[in-house]
């Protein structure tokens, strides 16, 4: 290949990678099973970090990321939360085979992270949304594929899309 051809490759490669990433994310968001889960702030000092909200997802399974021996030791590593048919937290290797809807993630420092704990928000609405999420009015809409990968679709405030909720409040 001559240099000019290499330049075309060098220019097209980032374009393909970026367009491909956006396409795959869009497909993942459009094709999965929709799940809505409530959220709550876990650290009042750092709920709003930059222009995104960070929060804990309330899966409703009680103890998450605990080693299971009844003590305070926390489980670390890959894990999953089964949503159907029975709600429960499981280390990745002990997930029940009959679980049909699940969210995969990782336990770190006693918290379950599924890559959905961050919601980007516009700068001008940051303070209002921060307050509402602190007041436990927030929930998130997810799209979950059959492998357990979850992507965020929307943030709800009192059950309404956040844009609608803010317009109503104003």
């Amino acid at each position, binding site marked *: 290949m001559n240099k000019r051809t290499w330049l075309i490759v*060098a220019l097209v490669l980032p374009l393909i990678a*970026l367009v491909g990433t956006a396409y795959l994310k869009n497909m993942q*968001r459009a094709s999965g099973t929709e799940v809505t889960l409530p959220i709550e702030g876990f650290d009042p000092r750092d709920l709003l970090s930059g222009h995104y909200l960070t929060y804990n997802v309330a899966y409703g399974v009680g103890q998450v990321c605990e080693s299971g021996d009844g003590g305070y030791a926390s489980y670390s590593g890959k894990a999953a939360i089964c949503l159907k048919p029975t709600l429960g937290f499981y280390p990745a290797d002990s997930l029940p085979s009959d679980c049909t809807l699940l969210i995969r993630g990782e336990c770190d420092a006693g918290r379950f992270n599924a890559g959905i704990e961050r919601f980007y928000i516009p700068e001008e609405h940051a303070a209002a949304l921060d307050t509402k999420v602190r007041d436990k009015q927030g929930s998130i809409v997810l799209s979950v594929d059959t492998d357990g990968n979850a992507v965020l679709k929307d943030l709800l405030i009192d059950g309404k899309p956040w844009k609608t909720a803010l317009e109503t409040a104003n």
Partner: protein
Amino acid sequence: MGMITRKLDQWLQAGLITPDQHTAILAFESDHPQHANWWIYSFMILGAAIIGLGVISLIAANWVDIPDSVKLGADFALLALIAGGIYAQYPNQQHGIWFEVLLVSFMLLCLSSIGLISQIFHTGGEWYHALLFWAVITFLLSLFASNLFTRFLWVTLFLHGVLWSIVVPIGVEFEHTWNELPAVLLLAPLLTAVLYQASVQVKTLQGFSSSLFFWFQLSAVVALVFADITHSGGDMENYQVARYIPAYIAGGILAGSIAMQRNYSLLNKVLLLAALALLLLYYHPDLLFSGESRYSLFSAYDHSDVSFWQADDIRAPLLTLAILFLYAVHAGNIGHQRTFNLVTFLIGLRFVILYFQAMGGLAATGIGLIVSGGLIMGIAWLWYKGREHLQQWTKGLKA
């Protein structure tokens, strides 16, 4: 041309060159015009970088009223447009400013596009993953850059992406703390040195060598300063061996690379390997350090019950000085004048700080200040006078 002409006239008048040589040099220079002035390059590229940062800021502001599809469509269309501009400017690469400006703009727009995609799809990735992804997709393009700034930008973001991506996932339980920092700081100079060695060997990558060497020296100094301050403070907590494994692997590869260097004499190899071994030891909390300090750098209280040679705040500066000395001798021996000057300056500076560590209380009195000022002047004079002797000595060393 004006400056060259003036110099040539002076040399001609001084009899250093003949009229024929004078004419020949002028003819050669007029046939080989210099590239556009460096300051035009610098300002144009700086402008492109600032515009790129502006685009990133606009995206970060998260315009909610614009539909996602429009934001993404506009972004990709702009990328494609700039890509077309780069392609059109390519024949002028050697002398064209616009090629380089468009190249920087495209690379920065790729970075802001990653941010835009993260924002629209609410991906939970870390900043260093974004940098690494950016570095991978723009690597081929960075090879076309002829300007140092463009290559430096790529190397800088790549190094940050790769270093944090390697260290942070190792070890858990410490999220949102800076416990991975020592492991990153140790890995940084070692990995950068390995990459520098590779860039020197592979012709395609030679354009990155100067940027990698810059980051190697800077990260090595930062690593030394961090270890020195931390150990002088009495401890280096939360040492997780797992986090240091990438640094040990990089250290092993670097040691092998040094041992196989044909350009280095046996003495240079021994000096560098010894400095490397000491640096690795420096980051281990137990092997050379007791966790006890004798002097307090930032307070008036001392711990004179701790013996002089047992104290970490004596061992740490000695280790710093030993590493710097080994590297200075190596740099002097291979004729790296600027590196030698810089490292010997750091040695002098560390001696001054060591004085204040041990005699800090003395500086609070009038006599103490006079003595301290005299000592600083003495060390500066010794450094100025001694470094030439040291350099001559290092050059004269044979394996």
